[in-house]
């Protein structure tokens, strides 16, 4: 069960000798074409003009400053998750538990908010992010521990821990942290306005969130590409046996990669609490972790592509919000497009493998 074929990293050695544009663009074009074909068929089936739908899906998020800022606020946690997953994918792990790590980060971020609401906001925020990172990392380390010492596949452990984390959030929202006099799944009391992450004017854009995400991406990029630690991480992901022979402490690197991913996902959780929802809700992750997994699967742990793909995915999601209003169709077509892109990317990779090897 553990020896899944981890085809996660870019394979520089497989580059085709023929350097024609077709050879380099074949895979992405096949994936894009297949995904668009499927999505178009789905759109046509509900009698919607695909062109209009695509116009809204692709450009909708850039049409007004408000939408653009919404897109940024979605892209920020998404970027953090996808960046974190770059670490675990580099180490050859499917961290399916990223959703739970995000939720636990959000729960942990609530702790200082509830315990020390009197602290100056800046200090409180730092504390929140620190707690969130610690919470996410802890949850990820639990999965890593299960993997390394009890041999539980990180896929199933992560899945189970996701549900446990959402159970915890549910318990807190409906139990000890509920609004006074009510018990609703809609979330805890809203934070006081002064504790919301400061925004740009009337927009919902809190610049701290994307800044943090970009910083994390840069840091991870640097760590994976420039440091020996990152090199060791990739070595473990590519070939654990050989890495071990070359003196890399593989187990440690795996645990560190998981913890790093958990910490970043936890910080994404803190953004959801402080900058997006301003409260803890049961569905605090809002599927951002799963979307992050899609992004990471698509870019195969290559940090260069994380930012553009995360932004594109976020703009699909934000753009799709206008679909019901403008075209009368459900906005989940964004998810169809995102999923289809990854599915056809897998298909294209499989086909090319079959052709070349």
């Amino acid at each position: 069960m553990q020896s899944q074929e981890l085809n996660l990293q870019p394979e520089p050695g497989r580059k085709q000798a023929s350097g024609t544009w077709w050879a380099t663009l074949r895979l992405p074009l096949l994936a894009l074409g297949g995904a668009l074909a499927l999505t178009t068929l789905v759109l046509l089936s509900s009698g919607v003009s695909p062109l209009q739908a695509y116009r809204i899906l692709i450009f909708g998020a850039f049409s007004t400053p408000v939408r653009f800022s919404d897109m940024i606020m979605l892209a920020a946690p998404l970027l953090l998750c996808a960046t974190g997953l770059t670490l675990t994918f580099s180490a050859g792990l499917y961290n399916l538990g990223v959703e739970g790590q995000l939720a636990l980060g959000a729960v942990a971020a609530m702790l200082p908010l509830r315990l020390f609401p009197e602290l100056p906001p800046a200090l409180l925020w730092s504390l929140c992010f620190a707690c969130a990172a610690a919470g996410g990392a802890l949850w990820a380390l639990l999965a890593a521990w299960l993997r390394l010492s009890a041999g539980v596949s990180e896929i199933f452990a992560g899945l189970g821990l996701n549900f446990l984390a959402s159970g915890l959030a549910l318990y807190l929202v409906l139990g000890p942290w509920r609004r006074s006099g009510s018990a609703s799944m809609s979330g805890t009391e809203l934070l006081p306005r002064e504790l919301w992450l400061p925004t740009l004017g009337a927009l919902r854009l809190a610049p701290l969130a994307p800044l943090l995400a970009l910083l994390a991406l840069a840091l991870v990029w640097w760590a994976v590409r420039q440091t020996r630690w990152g090199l060791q991480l990739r070595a473990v992901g590519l070939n654990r046996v050989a890495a071990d022979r070359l003196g890399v402490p593989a187990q440690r690197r795996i645990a560190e990669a998981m913890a790093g991913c958990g910490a970043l996902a936890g910080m994404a959780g803190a953004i959801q609490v402080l900058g997006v929802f301003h409260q803890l809700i049961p569905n605090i992750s809002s599927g951002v972790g799963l979307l992050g997994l899609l992004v990471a699967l698509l870019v195969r742990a290559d940090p260069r592509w994380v930012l553009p793909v995360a932004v594109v995915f976020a703009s699909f999601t934000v753009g799709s919000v206008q679909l019901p209003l403008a075209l009368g169709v459900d906005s989940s077509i964004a998810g169809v497009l995102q999923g289809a892109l990854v599915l056809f990317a897998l298909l294209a990779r499989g086909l090319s493998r079959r052709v070349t090897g």
Partner: protein
Amino acid sequence: MEVAVHNLCKAFGAVRANDDLTLRFAAGQIHGVLGENGAGKSTLMKLIAGFLRPDGGSIRFDGREASLHGPGAALRAGVGMVHQDPLDLPAFTALENLLCAAPRGAIGSRAAGRQLLSELARRLGFTVEPDAPLASLTVGQRQQLEIIRLLACGARVLILDEPTTGITAAQTRALFAALRRLAAEGNTVLFVSHKLEEVAELCDTVCVLRAGRLVGEQLPMPVPQRRLLELMFGAAVAQPTAGGAGEVRITALRSEGGLPANAGEDGTPALPGLHGSPTTERIAGEAVWQLAGVSARAGSVALRDVSLSIAAGRIVGLAGLDGSGQPILLRLLTGRMRPETGHILVNGRALSGGGSRAYRAAGIEYLPADRLNEGMIGALSLTEHFALLQNAALVDQRAAERAARAAIADYAIKATPVTPIRALSGGNQQRALLALVPPDCRGIACEQPTRGLDVASAQAIWRRLLERRLAGCAIVFASADLDELIAYSDEVLVFFAGRVSAPLHRAELSVARLAELIGGVGFGGG
């Protein structure tokens, strides 16, 4: 049923595993198939049993040409194969193994299967409980069950691949009795082995393969052991691998005295200028490895009570056929396996409880045979490998590239510093592997260091290893190439079915002596 192959060809990449084989196995007899590692025995057997499809030529059963698209088809045609590690289902019971995917109509019902199982077991003198979980059975019992299963499924030709590895003497006796009985009943048995005594004891005829070709066809037993060894290891074809080794072999084989104790004296092979005086070296180094009463087990092979000491500056060769236990020793020496009992000292410090990282820290390097899967990371370049070996937190890209360039120059590796390792040829990969060994290394354990390399590459590798040895490094290597073992070893340990011979010093080395020991001759009865 008679089995015949005509002009059979099978190639794996550039290697011609079976090269235009034409051969006939008569019904009602036990046929030995001999050959050293890589001679093409297994390929031939897998072709006949339908596991592989030939590139050319034909397979005929009782004169009718058979087109086998899989082992199922072969079994329907009456051919069954028992693999060295039986291809059975440990999670099932014996009876379930018998019933699983049995051909339509072969076994009517569960009850019929149970009856058939006990009946066949009784007839063949086997002891297999129908309801015993397979995981609780010994390899020998699992093999017996496989034979029963194949017979129950209608096999009239049985192929056994190294069946006596990992089973007890009593089981071997039972097996042989059963095989004789089966042959007497008109079945054909193909017995693949490299244990000459067993072949001599059991087989009616023997054929010998070497390098994919038939070198001895249907020799009716008994054939003199010496003749078989000569056929297997190629007395007639001298290959100029290393210095005068070829001559040694020929003289050794030609001398009539059986085990010429003096063979080493006139035929000490040497690489001039590199090989120092053996006698002085023998005393010089301190012990790098010391093993006391070490036992360990991997799969069906167990090493028992091994004690030895390997000094700095010594080269120890490990001889033996596949599955005789050499990899276990290599793994013990490098901390990849922990001994069940006994102690291992490295540089005088007890390390038996440590893992591979502790050994590595103590200056022990392991060079695996599977260079790409265990040795290096195919997707990374030589520069990145050197970067991995650095100590600082930040990669010093320039230093790593310098090291890579130096290695490329020193070791004549045909690559750029940024070429992914997987894009290199085998010889270059091996040189890169060697180049990555740190200069202060105390001991190197290599598995098949020159496997798959051409002569020039192999010599280049050995030049490097010998340089290391001059720098005070102890080298242990396992090889299937007797010439290589003789040419470079200060002493050789021969492995046979998990047992280790006393060290043979270079003075005592000869191909004949090694071949005998490898074939199990001289390891005593049982």
